[in-house]
């Protein structure tokens, strides 16, 4: 191969790669065979495969926030400046102190943790420190990932996974029959297996096929792995837009595709299996097809004196490829009892199995084999092994498909499909093999390379009673590393079956779960990786508030001004100042987030009297009332006001936090319970921006703004303020005479400006949520999520007298259950401090150590007089007025002695509302 050379570093040393090299190919090209250290025993490990199944050559790639640990060197293509570092070694890869653990391998057998780390929790805390220090391979980066991730959906008639010859042909056929096609290939080229084994198709055919697919509108995605197969033929594809550790050209590092396909074709091929023999994990032991790939695709010859061990015909291709590349094939160890055909002039030994190897740092030195019962030894630097082929059936099984046993191939192949998925190509027809049983020392014969599981571990698990493959897997950790057992599962199943004395299908099968290959967490988060994952909801008047630099408060997805500090005021000082302004003069605040629904039509009142637990139909036009809504079980789930705007038109308001829930509830009632009603119920929460003006001077402010007498309490009129049409509702949450002004959100800024000018002119100020909380607690008004917490009935909240006596509302039946009006239920009460300050959330107890009788739902201070007050829920609270209790909050470290009082600390008669 010729082409531009690229510079990269491995463990700080600079090397050259050919353009198109994987890191593994480039390292082999540079004579580097030792790439990493194993997980448990720190054994030297090299490059075993040429694909995503690689268990050994795991490295850390990239720097800073782009660091990506545990990257398979076989699955990263070298780019200029790539920085790769070996893992799990100290002080260096070639001299690793941790390798001494290998000497203690006999005590690190399967179940070591379970047998060793037990005892008291305190002892576990001691063990944990060392376990955590020793665990894992690469280290996660400590800096934030600077790159972005994308989620994109796609729909197609046919999704083809795998762009080998079968996949390419299937995609081409589908595209040329007029179907929308997506072809996904995890490699960075199409038809990689055709480069390894050209057959009668060549690169020109690949290019032509791809061009024809694209010409028909087909989408071809390279570096794209089908990571999961979900319900309804939804397949997720993880696409690399740049290599691990590389700075993306367009900001996006990876894209997660959600592909909904009418039909899925899996052309995922198969993965070659290793053979189990002593020290089969050493650098210099490679899979046969991988060796062929390095020779044919990358022009890299991994060894000069090569032994090939096989139980099938495919490995002979490797022999030919190596010979053509100039390597010396010193022996072919063929497990089959007799020659199967032309030996190609190679020294072939039948009934031959490798039993052990010895190695140098980067390659092998010697291969020992059992040939018909006789041990033979060869000097060789590479052993290419082929133990058969495991079809890649992961996606088929994730889709709910079943497998059947192919005895000739000694492999599970796809059988029945439960979704519209078909498997084609090599995954359906793996090459036949000759079954072999390991004959070497099981203590050094690895089956799971990534988790250092040997045949002896499988044997031990069996001896200790683990019969189910699922149990064995968890006890030994076999198949539980990031490679998900792609190379190990069949070997372990074979050993288990051997122990059980059954054929492999009788030993069972583990479950294939997504993702097929590791997926970066940021990719799952998508664009939301940089924030909370959801958009913040902005007030229509956001810019107006932001200019005043308020303290913001998240409220659900909303952000609302909590207070508007002046000078160096603290939150508490600001809130108290603002609340006092409302009590003594006038204040204004943004109430846009309240739920609002416009109900229109001749049956509006009928619908509302089903939704609301209070009567509605008797409201006169222009009047409103407080109302609340129940769940079907009779518990209060929201409250608000209802206003009759016209003969057949109402406005229903509700809480901010319950707005979405109310919208769903109203839709449910309208669509399912009352489709017969002549009514339209429209969510206008965002259409109207809301401004509340409250205080003794509120009426005067409104008169000035409206140019006429404002409506009396619980009345509504249309008006014009700041040049905009508005709806004015005379309602109070603060306990003062107050008005809510609703305007089209697109024009609300002008209304706010007019209101603020007049409020300021009359000596008032803005107030935020904190002051509003002080005011409403003092008045004894409820809040959803606090006093209305889903466990309170109207009776518990002293709202029973407001229930619609005619019934018929949702929750009426549930509420009729006697237990819901029992006298010992938790009931709404007020609390005033005798000593100390009452903490929100505090438990109410009679004595320290006693059982909680209730809790504080909201705490505040009297706005004018001072003094700690609160609202709460208390068992049998209505009958406990005057009783002294302890309000204690261990989490806040606050305790107060409190007296139970009525939940109205301010103007209980409501005289301040009235003119």
């Amino acid at each position, binding site marked *: 191969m010729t082409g531009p050379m690229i510079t990269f570093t491995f463990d700080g040393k600079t090397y050259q790669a050919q353009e198109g090299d994987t890191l593994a190919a480039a390292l082999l090209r540079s004579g580097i065979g030792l790439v990493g250290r194993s997980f448990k025993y720190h054994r030297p490990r090299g490059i075993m495969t040429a694909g995503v199944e690689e268990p050994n050559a795991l490295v850390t790639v990239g720097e800073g926030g782009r660091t990506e640990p545990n990257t398979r060197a076989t699955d990263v293509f070298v780019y200029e400046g790539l920085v790769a570092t070996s893992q799990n070694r100290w002080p260096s890869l070639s001299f690793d102190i941790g390798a001494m653990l290998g000497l203690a391998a006999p005590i690190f057998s399967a179940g070591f943790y379970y047998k060793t780390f037990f005892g008291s929790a305190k002892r576990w805390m001691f063990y944990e420190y060392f376990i955590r220090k020793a665990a894992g391979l690469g280290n996660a980066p400590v800096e934030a990932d600077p790159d972005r991730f994308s989620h994109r959906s796609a729909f197609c008639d046919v999704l083809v996974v795998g762009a080998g010859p079968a996949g390419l042909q299937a995609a081409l056929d589908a595209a040329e029959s007029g179907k929308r096609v997506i072809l996904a290939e995890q490699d960075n080229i199409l038809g990689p297996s055709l480069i390894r084994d050209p057959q009668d198709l060549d690169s020109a055919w690949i290019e032509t096929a791809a061009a024809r697919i694209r010409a028909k509108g087909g989408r071809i995605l390279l570096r794209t792995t089908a990571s999961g197969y979900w319900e309804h033929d939804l397949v997720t594809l993880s696409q690399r837009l740049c290599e691990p550790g590389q700075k993306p050209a367009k900001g996006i590092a990876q894209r997660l595709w959600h592909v909904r396909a009418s039909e899925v074709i899996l052309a995922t091929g198969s993965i070659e299996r290793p053979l189990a023999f002593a020290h089969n994990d050493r650098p210099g032991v490679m899979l046969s097809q991988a060796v062929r790939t390095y020779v044919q695709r990358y022009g890299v010859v991994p060894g000069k004196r090569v032994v090939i061990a096989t139980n099938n015909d495919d490995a002979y291709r490797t022999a030919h490829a190596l010979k053509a590349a100039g390597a010396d094939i010193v022996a072919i160890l063929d497990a089959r009892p007799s020659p199967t055909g032309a030996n190609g002039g190679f020294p072939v030994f039948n009934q031959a199995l490798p039993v052990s190897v010895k190695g140098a740092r980067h390659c092998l030195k010697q291969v020992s084999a059992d040939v018909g019962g006789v041990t033979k030894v060869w000097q060789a630097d590479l052993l290419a092994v082929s133990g058969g082929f495991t079809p890649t059936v992961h996606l088929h099984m994730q889709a709910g498909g079943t497998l059947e046993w192919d005895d000739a191939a000694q492999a599970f192949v796809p059988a029945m499909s439960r979704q519209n998925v078909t498997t084609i190509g090599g995954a359906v027809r793996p090459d036949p093999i000759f079954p072999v049983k390991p004959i070497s020392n099981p203590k050094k014969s690895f089956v799971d390379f990534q988790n250092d599981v040997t045949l002896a571990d499988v044997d031990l698990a069996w001896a200790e009673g683990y019969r189910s493959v699922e149990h064995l897997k968890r006890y030994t950790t076999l198949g539980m590393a990031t490679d998900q057992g792609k190379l190990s599962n069949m070997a372990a199943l074979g050993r288990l079956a051997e122990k059980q004395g059954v054929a492999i299908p009788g030993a069972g099968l583990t479950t294939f779960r997504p993702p097929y290959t590791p997926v970066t967490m940021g990719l799952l988060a998508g664009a939301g990786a940089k924030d909370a994952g959801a958009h913040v909801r902005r007030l229509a008047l*956001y810019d107006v508030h932001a200019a005043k630099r308020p303290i913001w408060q998240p409220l659900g997805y909303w952000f609302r001004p909590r207070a508007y500090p002046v000078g160096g005021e603290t939150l508490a000082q600001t809130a108290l100042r603002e609340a006092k302004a409302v009590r003594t003069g006038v204040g204004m605040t943004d109430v846009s987030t309240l739920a609002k629904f416009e109900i229109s039509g001749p049956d509006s009142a009928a619908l509302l009297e089903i939704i609301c637990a209070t009567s509605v139909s008797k409201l006169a036009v222009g009047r409103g009332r407080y109302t609340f809504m129940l769940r079907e079980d009779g518990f209060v789930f929201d409250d608000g006001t209802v206003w009759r705007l016209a003969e057949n038109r109402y406005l229903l308001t509700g809480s901010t936090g319950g707005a979405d829930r109310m919208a769903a509830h109203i839709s449910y009632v309208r669509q399912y319970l009352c489709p017969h009603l002549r009514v339209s119920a429209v969510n206008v929460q*965002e*259409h109207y921006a809301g401004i509340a003006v409250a205080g003794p001077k509120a009426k005067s402010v409104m008169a000035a703004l409206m140019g006429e007498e404002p409506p009396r309490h619980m009345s509504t009129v249309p008006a014009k303020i700041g040049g905009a049409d508005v709806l004015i509702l005379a309602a109070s949450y603060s306990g003062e005479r107050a008005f809510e002004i609703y305007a089209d959100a697109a024009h609300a800024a002008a209304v706010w400006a007019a209101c603020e000018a007049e409020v300021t002119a009359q000596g008032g100020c803005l107030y935020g949520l904190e002051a509003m909380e002080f005011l409403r607690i003092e008045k004894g008004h409820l809040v959803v999520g606090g006093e209305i917490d889903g466990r309170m009935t109207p009776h518990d909240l002293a709202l029973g007298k407001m229930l619609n006596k005619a019934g018929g509302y949702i929750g009426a039946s549930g509420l009729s259950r006697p237990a819901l009006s029992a006298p010992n239920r938790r009931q709404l009460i007020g609390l005033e401090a005798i000593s100390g300050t009452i903490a929100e959330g505090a438990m109410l107890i009679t004595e320290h150590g006693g059982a909680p009788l209730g809790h504080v739902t909201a705490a505040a201070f009297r706005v004018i007089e001072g003094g700690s007050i609160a609202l709460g829920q208390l068992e049998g609270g209505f009958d406990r007025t005057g009783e002294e209790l302890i309000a204690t909050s261990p989490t806040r470290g606050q305790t107060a002695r409190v007296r139970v009082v009525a939940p109205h600390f301010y103007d209980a008669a409501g005289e301040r509302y009235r003119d």
Partner: protein
Amino acid sequence: MMPQGNVIVTDVTITLLPAAPLYALEIWSHAHDVAKRFETALGFALPVMGRSAGSDDLCLIRFEPTVWLVEGDVGALPPILGEDGALTTIGGGIVRVRLSGPRWRALLMESGVFDAESPSFASGCSAATIIDHVGVRLHVVSDDVCDAYVPRSLSAGLVHFWEAAAGSLAA
């Protein structure tokens, strides 16, 4: 802060349209009679589900079985509806965002769940869907233009998302 001005990238242009009166038109009874009255009075039929219809002055887009989004002069509608339906003003809560250029379909696939790339989603089609967790109504104005009706409170976040996504569509 609401996004200001237009964001133009190579493949798609994101434009905030000025605020406009918008209405929800719901028909609860005698739908066929209303449809006849409508066509007689206005010269075009009420659009079917997933489609729009209109004139220079009035456009109706059907997103729900019984509800149409109405844009334009609605003066003629109350007498047509009579006691069989109602109009509700909703324009304050919706920000209209125009996506134009050859890649608007690809942009809608970013964190979307609707097949905006389907050839059948053509001019005059509408859809109600979710994009990056935001409920959005789409109306295909022409081959190169799609209007999105976005909840006001989420419009700044979604436009920001689109601006970022538009820049890397070709990635």
